[in-house]
């Protein structure tokens, strides 16, 4: 069994970059200078990941405000609504309001991935880059549906008309889908919603997207209730547990990205040892987005993951 340290989703957006984005938003920084800042900070992600021993990386999602934005700005049929809590976190996202049939518009996401890949090849060519997108199920659950007959029609719409064409355009081998909704249905904390997507449909749409490109399906805030075939499933072992029937390659969220307290590497190793017979590769990851931690602590946790890597 191999243990490979990996990053999932976003990193805390550095304050220096946030200030530059704000300056751009009020017209006091040019687009060119903002783009230069994005590239410099992305380069820093890859250098620090290399130094921490993280072998599978993302670009830190510095261009994203949350896991849905800005993608939802590039979907025809969707308007952007007010702020909602992302599950029970003190972290908010702008919700998509679906007003018509959804379809992907021209968007810069493939270009952003190309840029990140070029930077990675320059500073850390041995690493694997994942592109990160919201999964169709989580995106549908977090939408306000004012058009489709059912949430299940919406999830199909997002998968077929938005994510499928976008994934095709991304020049990476692996696409990470953020799918917390597979483990934690939209919490009653934020909405009183009785509408559900059946497990069969959720599994089918993800497996269908898995035919387009290799998928790494990241679940968190619970135990996954849906196990799509043919994908790398990421399971949150801090707030959930390993479901039955998983094998091969798996991602395991073994450090808590919602608490500053540092885990002990020896205890995590013992835990992984017990699971070693079940998997060919274990990717050790944070249990959820590192955006919930201060930047310094996020990197400490990544360095801890880096120390777990090996045979």
């Amino acid at each position, binding site marked *: 069994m191999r243990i490979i340290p990996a990053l999932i989703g976003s990193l805390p957006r550095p304050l220096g970059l946030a200030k530059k984005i704000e300056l751009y938003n009020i017209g006091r920084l040019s687009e060119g200078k903002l783009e230069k800042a994005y590239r410099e900070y992305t380069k820093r992600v890859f250098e620090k990941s290399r130094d921490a021993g993280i072998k599978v990386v993302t670009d830190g999602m510095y261009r994203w405000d949350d896991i849905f934005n800005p993608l939802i700005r590039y979907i025809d049929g969707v308007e952007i609504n007010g702020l909602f809590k992302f599950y029970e976190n003190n972290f908010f996202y702008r919700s998509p309001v679906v007003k018509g049939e959804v379809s992907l518009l021209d968007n810069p996401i493939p270009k952003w991935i190309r840029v990140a890949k070029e930077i990675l090849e320059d500073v850390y060519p041995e690493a694997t880059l994942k592109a990160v997108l919201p999964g169709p199920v989580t995106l549908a659950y977090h939408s306000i549906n004012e058009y489709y007959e059912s949430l299940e029609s919406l999830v199909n719409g997002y998968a077929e008309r938005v994510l499928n064409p976008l994934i095709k355009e991304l020049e990476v081998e692996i696409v990470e889908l953020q799918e917390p909704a597979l483990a934690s249905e939209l919490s009653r904390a934020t909405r*009183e919603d009785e509408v559900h997507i059946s497990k069969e449909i959720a599994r089918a749409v993800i497996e269908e997207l898995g035919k387009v490109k290799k998928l790494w399906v990241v679940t968190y805030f619970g135990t996954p209730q849906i196990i799509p075939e043919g994908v790398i499933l990421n399971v949150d072992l801090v707030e959930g547990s390993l479901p039955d029937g998983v094998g091969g390659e798996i991602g395991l969220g073994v450090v808590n990205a919602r608490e500053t*307290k540092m885990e002990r590497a020896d205890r995590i190793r013992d835990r992984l040892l017990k699971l070693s017979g079940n998997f060919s590769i274990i990717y050790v990851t944070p249990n959820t987005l590192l955006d919930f931690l*201060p930047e310094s602590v996020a990197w400490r946790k990544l360095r801890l993951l880096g120390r777990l890597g090996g045979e």
Partner: protein
Amino acid sequence: MELPILPTSVIGSYPKPRWLLRQYKLYRLGRIPEEDFNEAVRDASVAVLREHERAGIDIPWDGEMGRSEMTEYFTAKIHGFRFYGPIRVWGNFYFNKASAVSKLEYREPLVLDEFKFVQSVTTREIVKVPITGPYTLAEWSFNEYYSTKEDFAMDLAKILNKEFKLLEDEGAGFIQIDEPAILNHPDEVEWAVDVVNRAVKGLKIKVSMHVCYSNYYLLADYFDDLKVTQFALEFANRNFRDMDFLKKLTHQELGFGVVDVHNPRIESPEEVARAVRKVFKYIEPERLYINPDCGLKLLSRNIAYRKLVNMVKGVEIVRRELEREGKTSIPLRTLRDI
């Protein structure tokens, strides 16, 4: 104490004047002495208080000019917390989320000086003192010390109770407990209610609880259990949808949020009046206060002010209608009245 019917108030925060933000920066860099910084905060408090009063707000506050942020301000004053760095709330807005690293202790008053100053300079009979609640302080902090979150939050409740009693003794008439996180974990709400009730134990004054961006149907199940006089809730952000949960609010008051604090568009007085009339279906005017959805600090100062002006103008439209029914004022209800 009598108040005009549909008393208007604020939730708490307000945009800090740019010159004050510069003072914050200079103070953090050690370039101005503490007394100069404190003087700047007091001047800003007066300026904002006057702005609220000029807009026609009946129960104002100073917009939290002396508070850097709604949790950090408190956790920095409570012994047992430490800070590792800011974390993002949304977009490019951050806060310094504290970590509890030892048993928490109340070593100094948290907002007493702030209250005494505002009380001394306001032209209004009563002000509202907003204070972040114990559950939200625990939920929005990291916990490296307590074995359970309930123990963590309960210690915070005991600390806040000391502060509340101090405020009551010093003449505060209206405290607002800000609990935007109280519904975060549906399975924790039951003990979270006990935590809030512990924080207000022994108080006799008016206590409101502010909750925003949450599932109010879940909150409604606990309306009767929470020992507060009023619930100040957000409605404009959700476009006044889904208000049926208000049927369960049978005796406490509603602080009705009619101004969206995340949208720079200024609501017209007619829109505000329409919203207020809409909520009459659930709450009679005698149990209704009017406020923005939440703190206004994320807006520009000019827009925040104009939103308050129109909010009051909208309320005045409805007040004129109520006057025809002989409804012009209400008594200030306190915890003794519920």
